[in-house]
């Protein structure tokens, strides 16, 4: 019954802050108090009391339904974690109240989205999310931020109108917008004529927001140019919102093959671009794409463990990617550039804790066994059936390892104390899940879920992938081959969305 209050409280806080010009810190403290109570509510034993009829008790066909399921809890945890880390990160910085207000709107709409069970509600919230992140990307008003941000808005808006077409097709055939009702209709007649078109429109529309190639060619620019705290939120959290919608859609429509193919393209394409990028933030942004590949492959495998693996990996990726972006931001402040060669050259100027954070994030993202990247990847590897899925996962792993090995010289000496590290507490917050992922997963998904991570075959496989990644890195270092950057231009990205839609449709219709 009181589920709508969860997002509305953040929204209300944001509006209060802007109307009464509250100071940034007061707003942040209030936001944290709200977050803690949200978490307590969501994970309390009485949580089932929260979900109920549609919002406001209106007629079920027309009204909007919200639920607090496992997926919502998982992402709620991620949201609160990232918000906490970002709040700590910007605590000492001089931020304008506007930043904090937009942050509240962002968190509010994220929470609303993970609860929502209604297609049109999802559309509205995704648009709100687009607008808020659009404003946040260009927060520093540098021209390349403004351009990246505008490109993002144009492409996302095109995607959302494709999504709206999909909503229309669904509504015309189901007569309701609730996901449950749509699911029932699809189960009743899985070969109905409208399903491929509706599914293709919805998937293509939401893929633009979800960081999936070839739909999300705006992502590298937007995520690499935004201020560090924003990049962390966008890559760790906002991009996952598209994934949330995709998970919900995959539960309704038969999307297995499409997700597998998109996952392959996204994962491998992102890794190839990441391998040849020389800027740390840009590489991280491309890796956001490549890690989406894991999630998509997981989604395409319709087993219980794979589904949980997707949730676990989303949580893990959120934590280490945010850690990497925040540390990259501090490193930029210290040495004035995120060019990897330059960073390595001036590594003695980067504060020690920041370097430690970068190291931890690197170890987690390449999937070294005790860290959360590995623990979350293990169930996906175990659940992936068929050589194609296995091959894609292994290739993404190799690409990730090959590109992050570039950072290794950064961690060599000299280790001198330089400057102070203003935001090290935020690293600690994000390091907690990276180091303590096993108990968290156990608590969320049950004991059976963590078994693959204990399997020594999978552990060996991960190590082997790392080894091959090292080889690829050595070979690739000598070549000057770089994938074309022209793909990321506005016109090409627009055409890629349309082409992607046609391809998804063909797959759903004829395969």
């Amino acid at each position, binding site marked *: 019954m009181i589920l709508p209050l969860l997002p509305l409280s953040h929204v209300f806080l944001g509006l209060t802050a802007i109307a009464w010009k509250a100071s940034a810190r007061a707003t942040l403290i209030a936001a944290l108090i709200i977050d803690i109570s949200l978490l307590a509510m969501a994970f309390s034993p009485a949580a089932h009391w929260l979900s109920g009829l549609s919002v406001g008790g209106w007629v079920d066909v027309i009204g909007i339904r919200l639920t607090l399921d496992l997926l919502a809890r998982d992402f709620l945890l991620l949201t609160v974690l990232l918000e906490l880390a970002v709040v700590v990160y910007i605590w000492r910085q001089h931020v304008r109240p506007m930043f904090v207000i937009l942050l509240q709107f962002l968190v509010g709409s994220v929470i609303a989205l993970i609860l929502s069970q209604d297609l049109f509600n999802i559309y509205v919230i995704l648009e709100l999310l687009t*607008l808020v992140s659009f404003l946040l990307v260009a927060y520093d008003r540098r*021209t390349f931020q403004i351009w990246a941000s505008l490109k993002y808005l144009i492409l996302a808006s095109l995607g959302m109108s494709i999504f709206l077409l999909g909503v*229309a097709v669904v*509504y015309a055939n189901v007569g309701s917008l609730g996901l449950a009702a749509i699911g029932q209709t699809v189960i009743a007649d899985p070969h109905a004529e409208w399903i491929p078109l509706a599914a293709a429109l919805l998937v293509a529309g939401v893929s633009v927001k979800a960081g999936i190639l070839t739909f999300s060619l705006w992502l590298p620019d937007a995520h690499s140019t935004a201020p560090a705290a924003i990049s962390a939120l966008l890559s760790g959290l906002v991009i996952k919102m598209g994934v949330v919608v995709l998970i919900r859609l995959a539960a309704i429509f038969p999307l297995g093959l499409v997700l597998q193919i998109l996952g392959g393209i996204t994962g491998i394409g992102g890794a190839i671009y990441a391998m040849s990028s020389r800027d740390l933030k840009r590489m991280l942004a491309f890796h956001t794409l490549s890690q989406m590949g894991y999630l998509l492959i997981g989604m395409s495998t319709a087993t219980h463990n794979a589904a949980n693996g997707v949730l676990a990996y989303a949580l893990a990726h959120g934590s280490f990617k945010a850690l990497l972006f925040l540390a990259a931001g501090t490193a930029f402040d210290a040495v*004035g550039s995120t060019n990897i060669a330059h960073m390595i050259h001036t590594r003695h100027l980067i504060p020690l804790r920041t370097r430690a954070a970068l190291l931890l994030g690197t170890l987690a993202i390449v999937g070294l066994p005790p860290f959360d990247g590995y623990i979350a990847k293990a169930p996906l590897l175990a659940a992936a059936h068929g050589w194609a899925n296995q091959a894609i996962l292994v290739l993404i792993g190799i690409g990730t390892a090959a590109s992050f090995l570039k950072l290794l010289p950064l961690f060599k000496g000299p280790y001198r104390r330089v400057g102070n590290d203003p935001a090290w507490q935020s690293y600690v917050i994000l390091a907690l899940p990276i180091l303590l992922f096993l108990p968290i997963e156990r608590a969320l998904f049950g004991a059976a879920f963590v078994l693959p991570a204990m399997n020594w075959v999978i552990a060996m496989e991960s190590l082997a992938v790392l080894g091959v990644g090292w080889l690829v890195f050595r070979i690739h270092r000598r070549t000057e081959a770089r994938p074309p950057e022209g793909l990321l231009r*506005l016109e090409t990205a627009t055409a890629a969305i349309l082409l992607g839609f046609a391809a998804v449709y063909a797959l759903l219709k004829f395969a």
Partner: protein
Amino acid sequence: MGWLNGTTIAMILFAIGTTALIVRRDLVIKLLALGLINSSGILFLISIRFRPQMVAPILPVPAWVPIADPLPQALVLSAIVINFAILALSLVFVMLLVERYHTTDCERIEHAVDTEKAAQESQAPEGDSQASDAERPHR
């Protein structure tokens, strides 16, 4: 003329909009095209379950007269406002870009942004001066 219904026209509008969005280089025209695409989605939603004999969903309506479905109409009201919000914000950003580059030509802006970024990467990172080469060619 059965084929000339709202959904067909909406999709033709969509095609015109995407063509203009890709082909035209002027950012203002790109935004107009984006608005057209969004409008086409709205027209699609309104007309998809519309039958010619339906009347507006405002009571009282005699029981034997079919009512146009009110739900899509309610949804569309939100969509129109959202489109307005997108337009206003993107126009502001275009204004910021024009102030900097004195052009609305998309290719020129992309070129200028690229050179600016390259200049920033190559310059010694100590000097955090924002002045760059892109400022120069335009007065």
